[in-house]
């Protein structure tokens, strides 16, 4: 009993919750309508898909779709899916039913498909209407190619496979301008069960810039009706092709390899395979040739046209709008539209010297179809003067293929308030004029003309004279030292002083003797001769001159090691002068001259000896 109660309490909230959600969502029925393509040729098929989403568990009636005049309803199919979610105890359920209505275009024109409508609980629910365009058939053959079988088959077999398996390349346009995109869709149609579906050859599309917008990772089969027959169709690829060169381009064929599962149907007795579950047939399928005519852009392109094709619009914004001179301003120019955005490298920048621009940073965001999107150009600009500065518009010249003429998109002008910069001294108030600015830089001008050119290859220290000059102070110091030593000896050493003076004294006395000789004073002459010689010997040997007789001179000189002959001659001079000194009137002029010369010679000789 207790347990039962617990279960009841457990179930009660869940049932309440279920009831509540059902009650709450009962009214929520959503109808969504879409088409597989908005532009078809006469004779082609349009698939109008209506998705009915409802929270209700019960069934809903099939929506009613009106068939416009000019289209023919060729068939319809439906599928249902259901999902139940429990999130934090709350349950949501959704039932989705997809109805596909296939229409065949019979006449040219623009048609509105829908609205699909259904009545539920007395209320009528409508979907959106979808606009489709039916254009004249281009006269191209149906874009399908014969499958190639891996092994030999009869022509009937090949035709049979052709009817039931083909690959279509469907361009949305066959005549375009250079730069105008072509949307190309590859679809695989089959009535067989396929296995091992793989790409063989994938086209490279020379002459086009290719953007892949869809590339199937696995086959997602949907039912489609072609020529009144139901097929399983899978979208393989969807591409945007931007022609780069004019002329007729035949697109390469896409090739798909696959195996057809043919069931246990054996063709002959010998083909029977008792172990294999299925008999498979290897088949190679190619898409048909698609010719795209690319027209060159008409003449008369505006100046600055760089190959942009499509429809574009631009806007610009600047951050900040008030700044100081010399500070950068970030300019963001957003270019939106349909066309070959990837081919637009730069915009036409505003002219004039008011701003300095740096190359932009670009960022391209394309929408899902790769046929359009937005490209952002981020410029850095530096205002070159202060005050209220208007940034002139950025522009882009482009070709509009729909209207087949050139157009120019422009941004709005932006007004910036530029305050004077901080650098440089401000002009003194009241004094007109402006600071001198460097407008350009160049090398300095050449040196002036010269009347003489000096060789500068040797620098000062490399010349010989420089080092000779350095010897002068050295010699000076040495000389000063020697002179000081000399002075000191003269002051302290008598013998040195007498010896140093002896020669000059002797010369002075001889000079005096010469004068006396010429005056005819023979006594004075001989006395001076004797004195000069005696004093010379006394000075040289540091003795008193007074008592120096001829004998003593002989002894002294002999002590000094003077030659005997010289001593004899000295003694002779002494004797002669003594003799004549004390006997006046003696001695002729010739004798005096001879004695004078002899004394001179002797002093010279003695100077070397003592």
């Amino acid at each position, binding site marked *: 009993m207790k347990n039962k109660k617990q279960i009841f309490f457990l179930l009660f909230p869940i049932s309440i919750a279920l009831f509540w959600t059902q009650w709450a969502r009962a009214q929520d029925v959503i109808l969504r309508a879409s088409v597989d393509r908005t532009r078809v040729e006469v004779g082609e098929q349009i698939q109008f898909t209506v998705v009915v989403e409802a929270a209700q568990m019960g069934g809903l009636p099939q929506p009613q779709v009106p068939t416009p005049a000019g289209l023919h309803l060729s068939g319809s199919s439906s599928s249902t899916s259901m999902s139940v979610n429990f999130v934090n105890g709350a349950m949501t359920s959704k039932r989705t039913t997809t109805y596909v209505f296939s229409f065949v275009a019979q006449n040219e024109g623009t048609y509105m498909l829908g609205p699909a409508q259904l009545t539920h609980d007395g209320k009528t629910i409508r979907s959106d209407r979808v606009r489709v365009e039916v254009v004249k058939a281009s006269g191209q053959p149906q874009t399908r190619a014969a499958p190639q079988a891996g092994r030999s088959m009869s022509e009937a077999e090949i035709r049979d496979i052709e009817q039931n398996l083909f690959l279509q390349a469907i361009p949305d346009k066959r005549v375009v301008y250079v730069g105008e995109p072509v949307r190309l869709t590859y679809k695989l149609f089959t009535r067989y069960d396929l296995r091992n579906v793989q790409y063989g050859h994938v086209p490279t599309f020379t002459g086009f810039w290719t953007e892949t917008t869809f590339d199937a990772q696995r086959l997602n089969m949907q039912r489609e009706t072609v020529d009144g027959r139901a097929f399983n169709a899978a979208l393989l690829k969807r591409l945007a092709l931007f022609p780069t060169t004019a002329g007729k381009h035949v697109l390469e064929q896409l090739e798909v390899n696959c195996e057809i599962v043919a069931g246990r149907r054996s063709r002959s007795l010998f083909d029977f395979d008792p172990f294999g579950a299925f008999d498979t047939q290897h088949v190679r399928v190619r898409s048909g040739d698609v010719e795209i005519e690319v027209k060159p852009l008409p003449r008369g392109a505006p100046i600055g046209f760089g190959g942009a094709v499509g429809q574009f619009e631009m806007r610009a914004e600047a951050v900040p709008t008030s700044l100081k001179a010399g500070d950068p301003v970030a300019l963001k120019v957003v270019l939106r539209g349909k066309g070959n955005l990837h081919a637009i490298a730069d915009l036409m920048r505003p002219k004039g010297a008011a701003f300095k621009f740096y190359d932009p940073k670009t960022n391209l965001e394309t929408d899902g179809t790769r046929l359009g999107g937005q490209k952002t150009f981020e410029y850095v600009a530096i205002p070159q003067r202060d005050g209220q500065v208007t940034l002139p518009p950025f522009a882009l010249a482009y070709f509009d293929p729909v209207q087949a003429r050139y157009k120019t998109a422009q941004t709005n002008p932006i007004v910036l308030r530029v305050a004077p910069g901080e650098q440089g001294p401000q002009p003194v108030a009241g004094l007109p004029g402006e600071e001198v600015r460097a407008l350009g830089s160049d090398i300095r001008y050449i040196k002036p*003309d010269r009347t003489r050119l000096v060789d500068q290859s040797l620098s000062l220290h490399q010349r010989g004279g420089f080092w000779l000059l350095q010897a002068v*102070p050295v010699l000076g*110091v040495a000389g000063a030292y020697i002179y000081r030593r000399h002075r000191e000896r003269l002051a302290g050493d008598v013998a040195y002083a007498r010896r140093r003076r002896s020669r000059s004294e002797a010369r002075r006395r001889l000079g005096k003797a010469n004068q006396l000789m010429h005056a005819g004073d023979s006594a004075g002459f001989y006395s001076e001769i004797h004195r000069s010689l005696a004093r010379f010997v006394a000075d040289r040997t540091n003795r008193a001159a007074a008592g120096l007789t001829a004998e003593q001179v002989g002894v002294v000189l002999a002590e000094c090691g003077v030659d005997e002959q010289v001593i004899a001659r000295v003694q002779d001079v002494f004797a002669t002068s003594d003799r004549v000194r004390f006997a006046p009137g003696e001695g002729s002029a010739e004798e005096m001259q001879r004695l004078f010369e002899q004394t001179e010679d002797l002093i010279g000789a003695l100077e070397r000896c003592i």
Partner: protein
Amino acid sequence: MKVVLYLVGAVAMGLMHVDAISASESLAALYNRGNEQYRAGHFEAAISAYQRVLAEGLNNGEVYYNLGNAYFKNGQLGRAILSYERALKLMPKDADVLANLQFANAQKVDRETEDEENVVTRVLQAIFAFFSVDMLAVMVCVFVFGLGGVAVCWIFMPIRRVLWGGLLALVAVALLGSASMLAFKSHQHRIPKAVILADEAIGRSGPGRDFLQVFTLHEGTKVKIERAEGGWLLVRLHSGLGGWIEASALERV
């Protein structure tokens, strides 16, 4: 006889002097003609005039400077930088040469990596750059004479030993400093340097085309030459990077 010889010698010396002056004057005329061509915008003619002056063996900084200007205006950036470097060697403190060398260096492709400079190295570099070789030579000379003067004073006035001894030490230190700086500077001047003249010079790991490519230098870059071998030179960049370059791609400063 001796007198006659002296006279002849003196006259010959005088004549040679006059000859030297007249040669220098004719070179000056050639240089002035180059300046004229430069002013007229005939840069190639100016270049050939300046080159003839230099071909006579005259090394003059102003001629190299004007030659550099003519090369620069003629679009020969490498040769312009080479001429400015040569002018700077002869006139190390000339503001025009320094300015134009800097301007020309800013135009070349290679960028030298600058050393990280602190205050000490900057002050030292400023001092080092302030003294030119000739200035240092004059300073050495002055200090040698000063040293001699102080020594003579000491000899004759030996009583003030402290004064003369202190002065002697001071002047000796100054002499030693200036002399060592002179020696260092003149050593630096003697390091062979070269400027790349080819548009592009490939530095290799050895003297030959088969060796590995180490770096690529462009016109106007200055390098030190360390070795020469068979038409190849081992050059070193300021950054310490070294490599062998074909001798034809560069020219010594």
